[in-house]
């Protein structure tokens, strides 16, 4: 008996030490940390994102890494628990000695923001919260695409222009001079879902949209009938969905079965290939703020993305992959392109990488996203977003909204950092 357990122990140690040996053998590498959610409240979108991160890093390494130096990726699942994100970050900083971190949710990114600023650690997040775009407050936070607030403003603008003003079903009310009505469905306790709400209400006032009482829907909701019934009393024309795909699909199905009769606009993390699959006919006509091409959609890099998805993660079939993969590539390409510049200048550290990112003007990553520009005073990557609509289960481009063109004064002076 004892012999057997000794044998197991040896086998375990051999695999572990062998692997560790292989890992530590590689020298002259650059270390990156990635904090992902594969088991927590946002794992419905987090798993695909995590796969995408690993694939994109493999691609960057294949085309030569950072000027010849390979990237070593440390990836860890924190289960959407903030205390664990904090210790994982500290491990990356003090133990693995990474030069930059690829982060995940708004809650932990905003919670870690004071710490990373102090540590001068570039932090490219999957949270596109507009709170992270003011370099005066959060100089080391960055992301590659439209922030939540601008995305929401764009989506509501697109609905207002293309549906409210044109659709025949609203003709009678338009002619009477009535205002459209909007209700927000989101998890108030989640910083991700509540991040763009202030901007949405501001934008509704700007366009002359009436806003009804907010409905609190959990990120893990399986039933939203009471919220839909609560919203129904207000008779909304438009519902804003601020959660992730699973919760959004639940809310849409309940709205459909209870005959809410409103159109839907969805935040970026609630709008992907799974939405029409989960919500079926309830998702027809829903519009979403998208930040890049869908998986298999039109983009110069799409062939490579698909090839790497197949090569690195052959167990996950292509029809199960999501737009999240492309978003992950965006985060990786933004960071690694900046690292290449910083490395050439011999400043591969926090400050050097951020300076390099701030030189990007109209940078196109080939992912079908809007070109991104950064400056030392403004970290909002884009000035609008392409708005897609679900028609017969497929995504169709409605309009690419440019907020800066339409409201230049407000864009420059008012809409910064929220």
């Amino acid at each position, binding site marked *: 008996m004892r012999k057997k357990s000794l044998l197991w122990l040896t086998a375990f140690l051999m695999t572990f030490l062998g*692997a560790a040996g292989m890992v530590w053998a590689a020298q002259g590498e650059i270390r990156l940390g990635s904090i*992902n959610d594969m088991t927590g409240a946002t794992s419905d979108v987090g798993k695909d994102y995590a796969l995408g991160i690993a694939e994109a890093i493999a691609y960057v390494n294949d085309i030569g890494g950072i000027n010849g130096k390979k990237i070593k990726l440390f990836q860890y699942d924190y289960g959407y*628990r903030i*205390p664990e994100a904090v210790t994982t970050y500290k*491990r990356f900083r003090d133990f693995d000695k990474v030069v930059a971190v690829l982060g995940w949710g708004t809650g932990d990114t905003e919670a870690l923001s004071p710490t990373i600023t102090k540590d001068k650690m570039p932090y490219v997040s999957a949270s596109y919260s507009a*709170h992270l775009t003011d370099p005066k407050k959060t100089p080391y936070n960055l992301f590659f695409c439209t922030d939540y607030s601008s995305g929401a403003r764009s989506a509501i603008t697109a609905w207002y222009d293309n549906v409210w003003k044109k659709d025949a079903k609203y003709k009678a009310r338009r002619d009477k001079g009535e205002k459209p009505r909007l209700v927000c469905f989101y998890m*108030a306790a989640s910083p991700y879902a*509540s991040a763009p709400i202030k901007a949405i209400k501001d934008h509704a006032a700007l366009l002359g949209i009436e806003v009804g009482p907010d409905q609190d829907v959990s990120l893990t909701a399986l039933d939203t009938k009471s919220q839909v019934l609560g919203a129904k009393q207000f008779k909304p024309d438009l519902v804003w969905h601020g959660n992730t795909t699973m919760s959004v699909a639940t809310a849409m199905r309940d709205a459909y079965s209870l005959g809410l009769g409103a159109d839907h606009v969805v935040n970026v993390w609630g709008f992907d290939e799974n939405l029409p699959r989960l919500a079926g006919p309830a998702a027809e006509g829903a519009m979403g703020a998208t930040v890049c091409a869908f998986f298999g959609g039109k983009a110069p890099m799409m062939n490579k993305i698909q090839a790497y998805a197949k090569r690195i993660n052959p167990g996950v079939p292509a029809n199960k992959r999501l737009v999240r993969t492309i978003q992950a590539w965006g985060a990786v390409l933004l960071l690694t392109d900046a690292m290449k510049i910083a490395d050439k200048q011999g400043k591969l550290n926090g400050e050097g990488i951020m300076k390099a990112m701030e030189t990007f003007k109209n940078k196109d990553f080939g992912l079908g996203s809007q070109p991104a520009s950064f400056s030392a005073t403004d970290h909002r990557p884009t000035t609008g977003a392409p708005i897609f609509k679900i028609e017969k289960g497929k995504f169709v481009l409605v309009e690419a909204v440019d907020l800066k063109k339409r409201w230049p004064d407000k864009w420059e002076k008012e809409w910064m950092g929220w």
Partner: protein
Amino acid sequence: MQYLPCGIYHEYYQQDHAWWQTRFVIGKMILLGIFIFYILPFWGGLYWVGVATLTIYTIMGALGVQLLIGYCGQVTLGHAAFIAVGAYTATLLTLQLHLPYLLSMFIGGLVAGLWSVLFGLPSAKVKGFYLIMTSLAAQFVTVDFILTQYVSQIGGRGQAFSLPPGSITIGPLVLDSDLKVYFLGAVLTILLTMGLANLLRSKVGRAWIAIRDNDIAAETMGINIITYKLMAFFVAGFIGGIAGAFWVSTLAALSPEHFQWFWSLWLVGVILIGGVGSIYGTIFGSLFMVLIMEGLKFIIIPLTPVYPALTMKFLFLKEATFGLAICLFLIYEPNGLAYRWWQIKNYFNLWPFSY
């Protein structure tokens, strides 16, 4: 019960109730003090300081749960709510009224204690499963409703906000590094643990234990069980509030997501694994839960480049392991790690004649 070396006889009650009864114990405590205040922070590296800070926060959070469940028999599944009340009160007092941080922390503790008493009131009438339901209500009413919808709006910062650098100070000292926060936490934890341990050997503590063991018998002996239960809720809430106020200093950021129901459950897990009805148990449980999570990182992070499946497939087990660990502890070690520690100590105390 504890064993004493030969030749040591207690003649007074003070000796019998002293914390450290022999020189050997005092020596061990000095070594522990040196470890906590010198070796770990100055030789351990910042990463371990970070892990220790999280452990300290878990200990402080779990102390209140230990008091309620382990010493007073009032099962609670909503303790994160009181931690949150302390965190929000302290932060808003610091930011809005510019009170000193330690004073805000103390007031945060008091407010959390009173809030806890409010949700402890049903314990006068209900027990067991029904009390669990009311503590669950505390969690959702406090965190998801009152704090998210109303309290977060004070000052117009929104649900998630960070504190400007340099706003957390103790006198002239700005708490701006992991090390300073660690020292603050270590001192607070020691004070709270000593305070609670002292309470437990007083009349109040004996009354709590009597209520836990049999509330009807306790009442017939003249203990006013409602007063003492509410007192337990107050002390537990107070300790939770201090823990919350301390957590603010570690991150300088706050949102309701820090205090989700999962964290309440986690704290109950901590005391189940550590040992119900033992202050040691709280500390061992916290160490176990934090170190297991960190240990997993040590195994998984270096292995993922070689076995990529680990990240995607194995990590799902992590959530299951938490439940499994509690099941296994309840089956094979129902008294928790604290009991095992007691046995180990006795083995050495009685060696070589352990019969």
